[in-house]
């Protein structure tokens, strides 16, 4: 049993993160001051939220490339609502953002479930459609800081026990989904549908419907993040969070989520997101141009996926397993 803990992906990743922090600390001790680490965590909160949703989708052998576009569209919608009705209380705004995001996720889910269109095609398509819709809604204009109401902007920064609400939401999501994934029928269905769809079907699990719920959850989290993002940075525009879907997939792959489905954990996805978050926050500190960011996250994806494949290979190879993977 202890051996399992020490070789688990979560343990190795925690080790890698500690090592990374130690290396940065040798040159810039201020980076690992608790207040700065809290800032890094807060900066990474959107990535953590999206990575949790993406992990669930990948578990069911799908992929959701529309999350960043969903985030931007929902962000624009709640911003426009706020501009039109400044008095609307924040809880209602949050409810709208979750519901609207979930609705967009359901569009992906329906196309994958009912029409059996490959998820990558569906979400590539909806990604461009969502972005285009933002342009149609906003006519290409930006919504800037002075146009938002004060409570709308203040919510994610409000501090509770020394941490901003944004961080608390990420922590709450990690706990909530850890419980959902390990203690509910739906959570176990996600693993079953991805681990072995045929066996899942015989066990009475509707694989398509499980995938539909995965997309819905991913969409709801993207919508929530959309509100948090526009309120924190106090700006909404067409290209908001452009290309962010790749960082989200990267966080999952680094966090040990197997792209073939069935393997992954909420904590792993969170650690993967934190790993990327620490790197992007540390680059300016150690005086490396932010232009390195893209190449570094690309290399991280490739190395992580190679490590994942290595780890899964050790469990013993069966000829039929290869045939199954190839299709």
């Amino acid at each position, binding site marked *: 049993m202890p051996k399992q803990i020490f070789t688990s992906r979560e343990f190795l990743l925690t080790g890698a993160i500690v090592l990374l922090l130690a290396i940065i600390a040798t040159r810039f001790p201020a980076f690992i001051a608790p207040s700065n680490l809290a800032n890094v965590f807060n900066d990474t909160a959107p990535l953590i939220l999206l990575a949790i949703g993406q992990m669930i989708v990948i578990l069911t052998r799908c992929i959701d490339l529309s999350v960043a576009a969903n985030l931007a569209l929902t962000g624009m919608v709640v911003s426009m609502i706020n501009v039109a009705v400044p008095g609307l209380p924040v809880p209602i705004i949050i409810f709208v953002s979750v519901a609207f995001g979930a609705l967009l996720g359901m569009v992906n889910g329906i196309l994958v479930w009912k029409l059996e269109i490959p998820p990558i095609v569906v979400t590539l398509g*909806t990604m461009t459609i969502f972005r285009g819709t933002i342009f149609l809604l906003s006519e290409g204009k930006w919504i800037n800081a002075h146009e938002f109401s004060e409570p709308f902007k203040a919510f994610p920064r409000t501090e509770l026990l020394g941490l901003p609400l944004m961080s608390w939401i990420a922590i709450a999501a990690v706990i909530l989904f850890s419980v959902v994934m390990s203690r509910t029928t739906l959570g176990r269905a996600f693993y079953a549908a991805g681990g072995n*769809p045929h066996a899942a079907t015989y066990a009475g699990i509707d694989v398509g419907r499980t995938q539909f719920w995965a997309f819905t959850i991913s969409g709801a989290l993207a919508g929530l993040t959309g509100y948090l993002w526009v309120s924190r940075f106090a700006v909404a525009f067409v290209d908001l969070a452009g290309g962010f879907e*790749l960082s989200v997939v990267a966080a999952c792959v680094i966090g040990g989520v197997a792209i073939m489905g069935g393997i992954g954990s909420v904590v792993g996805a969170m650690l993967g997101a934190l790993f990327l978050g620490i790197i992007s926050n540390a680059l300016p500190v150690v005086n490396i141009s932010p232009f390195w960011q893209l190449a570094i996250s690309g290399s991280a994806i*490739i190395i992580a996926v190679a490590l994942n494949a290595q780890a899964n290979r050790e469990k013993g190879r069966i000829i039929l397993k*290869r045939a199954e993977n190839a299709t």
Partner: protein
Amino acid sequence: MTDTTRFIPDRLQSPLERRLKSWETLLLAVAVSIFIVNSFTSPYFLNAWNLSDMTFNFTEKAMIAFAMALLIIAGEIDLSVASIIALASTAMGAAVQIGIGTPGLVLIGLGVGLICGAFNGFLVTKLGLPSIVVTIGTMSLFRGISYIILGDQAYRGYPSDFSFFGQGYVFWVISFEFVLFAIIALIYFVILHNTNFGRAVYAIGNNPVGAEFSGIRVARVKFILFLLTGLMSGVAAVCLTSRLASTRPSIAFGWELEIVTMVVLGGVNILGGSGTIPGVVIAAFVMGLVTFGLGLLNVPGIVMSIVIGLLLIGVIALPRLWEKWKS
């Protein structure tokens, strides 16, 4: 990712019936009707020079789409093609700065494309990693290297004879790019439909394990396909760089989606195993006509991307809806 069920019909359709019901015929009808609609809605459409300009909308993308079609038929995908263009273009731009002439530039462009393709092929075939994640990784990595080299700068100063590839005309309104596009289409038609290699590509896409047992060297064929896709990205990089006469790291951003859309629109099964080159050629014309026609009507690029997204989902969804409705 999802399973395909293949039905074996009681009797075969007659050759004429099969041809009339084929995807290519349907697509050709779409292309012709878009052409007719366009010539009615804009007085500038039916002009030889305007139509010649239109071809630049798709020639470079289509060159890559042919190689991508083979790759997708074989059950793999390459999302890094646009980033290969960026890296190849950056390498050519750097070479200009140290005074390398046009023949050298072309060799460098093609060479970088081949190296990137070989890198993808190595990761997928030698390490056995899933191509979708690998190429999402290399997509960040290749463009990331361009960003590291160029940052927010641009390379200019290409020699004047280099401009022939993207701006030269062979005869009257027939551009060099269009001729190259036609030649490449012909070469890929012969490769896919008239050689053992082409049959091997279909065999691998339909049943990789079966192909392996029939003596096809699956890994080698896939490696060659990644090489070809890299090479075509290099060719497209030469044409595009020559046409724009400058290089920025954001060059060809988002093209991978349009290229995949073109291939899928051309009737290639995203899950592998079927598709034709004539289909991709017609799809290239359809996409070129749509974007050009909307451009003449002053529709902004981002709204066109909605149309592309709807096309991508629509062409796959409609036949499936039709099947469902019939049964």
